[in-house]
């Protein structure tokens, strides 16, 4: 083996096909990839350090920016972690509202990933179709909380405001409309000869290796392991609902695509079920130490004014202890390891970011393949730079 025969190719840090800022230094033998070295950290913002100086309720602005394609899941996951530490039990209404939002976020996450797999294999049309639908979800967020991408949605103990009739109407309209578009998208790609040739057996990983690499989410399920946090450790009343966890067999790009596609259908079903059965009640539970009182009360009620002041000034400590809580985020098990010493801020907060953990398997998955397959493998893994670098 003579190294002089190989060429070095820099893929990234800014390359249109990497969909995010990370670099791969590829050692190539003609079109074949011999090896790759990954460089990450280009958008590292030290969230874990910043979180050690922030009152609990201010951490949602950080979790927003982890996986920015599905920020509500991150936010709600964090809020549930704090609730677990505080021992707060939420009502079914809050749980169902959370499920609706988290599943909407999962749909947008999967739509982005799958439509981009299409783009990277040369089919731009599907991308345009699906991005229009993603826009509808962002309009729902906007109606609900005023923001679109980094939503800062939800509060410790529930939501800042209830679903308005308009929001419910918009969600129903979305779930009515999406199936048609999704069918069209699937007709474009799923049994398309070119697409299948480009994705089947591209970037495969065995179930055993995937577990060893700490894979989770659709990437692990595509390899044939039926691990989904929503089912194994149900949170937010997911156990009230009946839904299927799709699994693949080969763990290749095509299986990852199909698993995500089926999960979108399941999410749609979950949203419809949760919305149809949405219980009556308040949109928050009684946690005066962490949930900001309604603004009207702050003006003329002593108690509310005191809590408002104490929360905003970040004077309230959480009980000492440690918890690990995880949710099924768009691309896997998003975990929060929270250590509290009784102070007003987390003593230590570690995010288990699924794509940070599974992205390290990329060299093994693309070695020996061609460059164009490597691009597809990377986009099918759904690596989101914000989550990767935290």
């Amino acid at each position: 083996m003579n190294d002089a025969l190989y060429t070095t190719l820099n893929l990234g840090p800014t390359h249109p096909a990497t969909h995010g800022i990370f670099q791969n230094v590829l050692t190539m033998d003609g079109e074949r990839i011999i090896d790759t070295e990954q460089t990450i950290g280009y958008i590292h913002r030290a969230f874990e350090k910043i979180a050690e100086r922030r009152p609990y309720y201010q951490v949602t602005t950080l979790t927003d920016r982890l996986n920015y394609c599905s920020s509500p899941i991150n936010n709600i996951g964090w809020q549930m972690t704090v609730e677990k530490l505080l021992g707060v039990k939420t009502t079914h209404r809050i749980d169902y509202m959370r499920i609706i939002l988290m599943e909407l976020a999962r749909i947008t996450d999967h739509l982005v990933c799958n439509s981009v797999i299409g783009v990277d294999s040369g089919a731009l049309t599907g991308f345009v179709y699906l991005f229009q639908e993603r826009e509808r979800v962002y309009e729902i967020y906007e109606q609900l909380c005023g923001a679109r991408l980094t939503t800062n949605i939800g509060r410790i103990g529930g939501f800042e405001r209830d679903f308005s009739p308009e929001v419910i109407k918009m969600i129903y309209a979305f779930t009515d409309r999406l199936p048609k578009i999704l069918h069209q998208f699937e007709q474009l790609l799923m049994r398309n000869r070119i697409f299948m040739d480009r994705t089947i057996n591209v970037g495969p990983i065995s179930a055993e290796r995937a577990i060893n690499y700490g894979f989770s989410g659709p990437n692990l399920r595509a390899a044939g392991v039926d691990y989904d946090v929503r089912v194994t450790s149900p949170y937010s009343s997911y156990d009230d609902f009946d839904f299927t966890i799709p699994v693949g067999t080969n763990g290749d790009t095509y299986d990852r695509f199909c698993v995500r596609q089926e999960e979108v259908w399941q999410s749609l079903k979950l949203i419809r079920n949760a919305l149809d059965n949405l219980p009556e009640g308040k949109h928050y539970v009684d946690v005066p130490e962490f949930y900001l009182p309604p603004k009207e009360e702050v003006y003329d009620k002593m108690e509310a004014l005191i809590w408002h002041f104490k929360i905003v000034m970040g004077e309230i400590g959480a009980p000492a202890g440690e918890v690990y809580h995880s949710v099924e985020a768009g691309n896997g098990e998003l975990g929060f390891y929270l250590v509290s010493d009784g102070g007003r801020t987390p003593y230590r907060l570690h995010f288990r970011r699924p794509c940070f953990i599974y992205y390290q398997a990329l060299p093994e998955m693309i070695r020996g393949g061609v460059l164009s397959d490597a691009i597809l493998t990377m986009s099918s893994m759904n690596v989101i730079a914000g989550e990767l670098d935290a």
Partner: protein
Amino acid sequence: MDNAFITGKLKTRFTDGIISTDETSDMLTVVVSKEVIHDVIFFLKENQSLGFTFLTTLCGIHYPEQKLPLGVVYHLHRFEGNEKIRIKTFLPLKNPVIPTVTDLFSAADWMERETYDFYGIIFEGHPNLKRILNVEYMDYFPMRKEYPLEDQTRHDKDDRFFGR
């Protein structure tokens, strides 16, 4: 599989290596000495009756006031019965060396690099131990508690008034 079974297994196998066990938090937490950490993880993963085959997280923690201030926390997961276990080990500030678990879990590779990057914990036997998220010429370990985040010239936000 209940916690008593796991602690029993660990205590018979490692006797003095197990410093303490705690069941008061959300999952079984075991503090072990750094001499046996690799063997404990290996035992938990490979023993037929245990089989914690999934490394959920690996991260560092810093308690400046402790005798052994630096810590490494492992969360392991057993899919079959959906059991989780938290393993902790503590190290001195000077020369914090601990054996790597990359030979057991490929997932540990970047997690250990991240822990090294943030806390300066040296994982002996790691194939490529260098900084991962921060720049390579950085000469300190930013997550240690001696590096406070806020501007030290500000006096209007005195920590004593906020419980820390």
